[in-house]
């Protein structure tokens, strides 16, 4: 027995190292881990302290128009230090999941650009969802939440993953409240923040208030816009010009001083869901179902039995024009929040550019604004260079790392590239319709 121990111990150390060594190469000993691939909650909190200085939360964050800022704060949830503190505690609290392994910070991890940098997210019992987790950075100015816009405010959105069976798994809000109501600290905080007992609506409000403080706008690009001519490379400047002109990006991704996020808050079918084989059949089935029986039960049956999640906004509004449409992603810090698109299928920003360059994926509900762009390689590189300048300085190291990694991946393969379509040699729909 004694002869096995060192070997076992050695193997044990190796295994431990392997298990804790993250795929992003960070040294295991530096980042303590929690479940589902997230960094530990305490570690995240410590990182957050470093990232965000203590400021007066009742004032608009630097870089945001104060009038616009105020207009986005819902009535009854004005910003106070107590509400932000409560929200922070809740955001990192794994007790809000059924098996106490998942908190908001699991999929919106401070150390991973406030998302999880995975294709789709992992919830309780290791269940995988169908959607890529958006970052919680700079969400204060979003007009709807979730990629299909089914939550009208942050406060509303925060309550929903907690009761989603594959995410945090509580059957309803009451059960979630029961999990934390016994904690005297929470009782004190809820009273201080809202003057009420622990309740589910305020859980959402507090988390929303906390998220409104997660503002990360200090990017080289913003400095360039404010007049610092050499804040970004000439390539990136050219990329910004293309963004506004030939590449047609700015219409859905506007970036100005009143709204620096880079999203129009609208929903567009750009063809990503069309790459799923059954999208078109599902879309037509959905439309037909509504034609025959407009009750929600039919749609729910379809939703349970099929992958109707790919229909996006249509499932929320039942508007035909919203088939396969998802909300325009915000562009701030886009360099550090791969993989891209609602299903996380695009791994690099070069893949994203290839997708747009060929005019998206043709399908019967494609947004007509998607056109083949005829961008040459140099122009694509310039636009990507510009996109990487949208990352907050506090994450510049991570940004650099992502840039190299994505560049290496893109150099090896460009799976979404189609020059025939991009340069209008063949036309979308030409496969389906012969001339």
């Amino acid at each position, binding site marked *: 027995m004694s002869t096995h121990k060192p070997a076992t111990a050695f193997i044990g150390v190796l295994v431990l190292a392997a298990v804790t060594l993250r795929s992003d190469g960070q040294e295991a000993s530096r980042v303590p881990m929690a479940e589902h691939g997230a960094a530990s909650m305490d570690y995240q909190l410590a990182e957050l302290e470093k990232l965000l200085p203590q400021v007066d939360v009742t004032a608009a964050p630097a870089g945001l128009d104060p009038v616009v800022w105020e207009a986005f704060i819902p*009535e009854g949830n004005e910003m106070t230090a107590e509400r932000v503190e409560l929200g922070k505690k809740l955001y990192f609290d794994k007790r809000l999941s059924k098996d106490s392994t998942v908190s908001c910070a699991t999929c919106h991890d401070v150390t991973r650009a406030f998302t999880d940098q995975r294709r789709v997210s992992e919830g309780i019992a290791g269940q995988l969802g169908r959607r890529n987790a958006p970052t919680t950075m700079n969400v204060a100015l979003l007009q709807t939440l979730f990629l299909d816009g089914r939550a009208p405010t942050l406060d509303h959105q925060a309550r*929903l993953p907690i009761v989603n*069976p594959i995410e945090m798994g509580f059957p309803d809000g009451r059960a979630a409240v029961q999990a934390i109501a016994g904690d005297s600290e929470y009782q004190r905080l809820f009273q201080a923040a809202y003057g009420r007992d622990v309740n589910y609506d305020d859980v959402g409000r507090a988390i929303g208030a906390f998220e409104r403080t997660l503002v990360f706008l200090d990017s080289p690009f913003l400095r360039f816009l404010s007049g610092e001519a050499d804040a970004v490379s000439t390539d990136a400047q050219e990329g910004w010009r293309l963004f506004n002109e030939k590449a047609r990006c700015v219409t859905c991704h506007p970036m100005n001083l009143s709204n620096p996020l880079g999203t129009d808050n609208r929903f567009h079918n750009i063809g990503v869901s069309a790459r799923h084989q059954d999208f078109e059949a599902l879309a037509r089935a959905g439309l037909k179902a509504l034609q025959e029986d407009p009750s*929600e039960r039919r749609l*729910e049956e379809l939703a349970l039995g099929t992958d109707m999640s790919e229909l996006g906004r249509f499932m929320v509004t039942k508007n035909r024009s919203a088939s396969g449409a998802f909300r325009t992603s915000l562009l701030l810090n886009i360099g550090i929040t791969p993989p891209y698109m609602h299903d996380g299928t695009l791994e690099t920003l070069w893949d994203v550019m290839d997708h747009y360059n060929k005019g998206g994926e043709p399908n019967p509900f494609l947004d*007509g*604004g998607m056109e083949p762009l005829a961008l040459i390689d140099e122009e694509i590189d310039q636009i990507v260079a510009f996109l990487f300048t949208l990352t907050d300085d506090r994450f510049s190291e991570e940004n650099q790392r992502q840039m190299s990694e994505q560049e290496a991946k893109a150099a090896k393969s460009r799976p979404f590239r189609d020059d025939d379509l991009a340069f209008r040699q063949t*036309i979308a*729909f030409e496969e389906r319709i012969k001339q």
Partner: protein
Amino acid sequence: MKPRHKSVETKYLEEREEFFRSLRRLDRRSFIKLSTAALGAVAVQGLVPPNSFQPVTLATGPTTQGAGNAFRIAYISDSHLYEKDVNDRFVRALMRAVDDVNALDPQPDFVFYGGDLAQLGQPKELELGAGILKNLKAPLKIMVGEHDWYFDMGEKWRALFGEPTYSWDHKGIHFVTLLSVVETDFWTARGMTPMERMKTVAGLDNSVQSPFSVGEAQREWLRNDLAKYPDDTPVVVFSHSPLYKLYRPWNFWTDDAEEVQALLKRFQNVVVLHGHTHQMLTNRIGNIHFHGFLATAWPWPYAPQGLPELTIEMARPDPFNPQDGCGDGDALVHPDGLVDKVYNFWNRNPVTVARNYTASWGKEGIPPQPNRPSY
């Protein structure tokens, strides 16, 4: 036994319903603040769930209960094709329309093409269009537009599609197709080449050209064609120009409209389906109900004068999306000849102008108003 677990979608919808209910409890100031900031269009419209989210049934028109032999026809119109390497956009749009019509289930009885298949009447353009339309599964009936005709005065058209004026009967309805873009000769005196003539006609606001007409020869043909049908025969007329007088400077006009309408006056119900105007248009003159086709190529703005009272304008299109304000559509043809006209806009909800709208002179079945009117 496990209780039935609610799907994610149902729960979200319930949450939203509760949210809207709670919204109405807010005082006005807070409501405005919330809605302008955080909600977006749906809440601001003040619509009440479940109608906030327009079910597709409304958009596709009433069911055919008690409609007897009602049947569906589809239409595609005004594609203005250039050759593919000159303009890929127009080609892509026509292909999309054909794809749309082929996906209809059940298939329509026939597909009607509303004219202006080519942009400059070039043989290659017409051939391109004919080739694309061949992909249609349902039978095709086709009509001449001015862009198809004035380069070679119909030579290529006849070779590809036959005579431009014809009629047929289908399920008790008498269908007539007219060539209603006849122009009196303005080109010979000016010594114009065929291309110059074509380009003159191709300019909507070009005042050198003459107004459209059906012309005496065709009116004579029409009189004879209709002679054998009793007054209670439902008649549907396909015409490129509107067969009434809307706006002369843009040739939204048929010069001998009154004479043509006089020929149709004795019938109980006449429906005119026309192209050329690239927009949603509705009119009624006596017993004649007029509906316009959408274009696949581009939308026209509304004329500054002369809009029929019954017309509900389509919302002003967004120039970023070259297919906004465009599309295809279909019509449910009832046994009495009146139609439910569906405008199938791309990237917009479809709009139906139901038969009771024109039948009631605009009192019932009013289609939704545009939120972005024309300038």
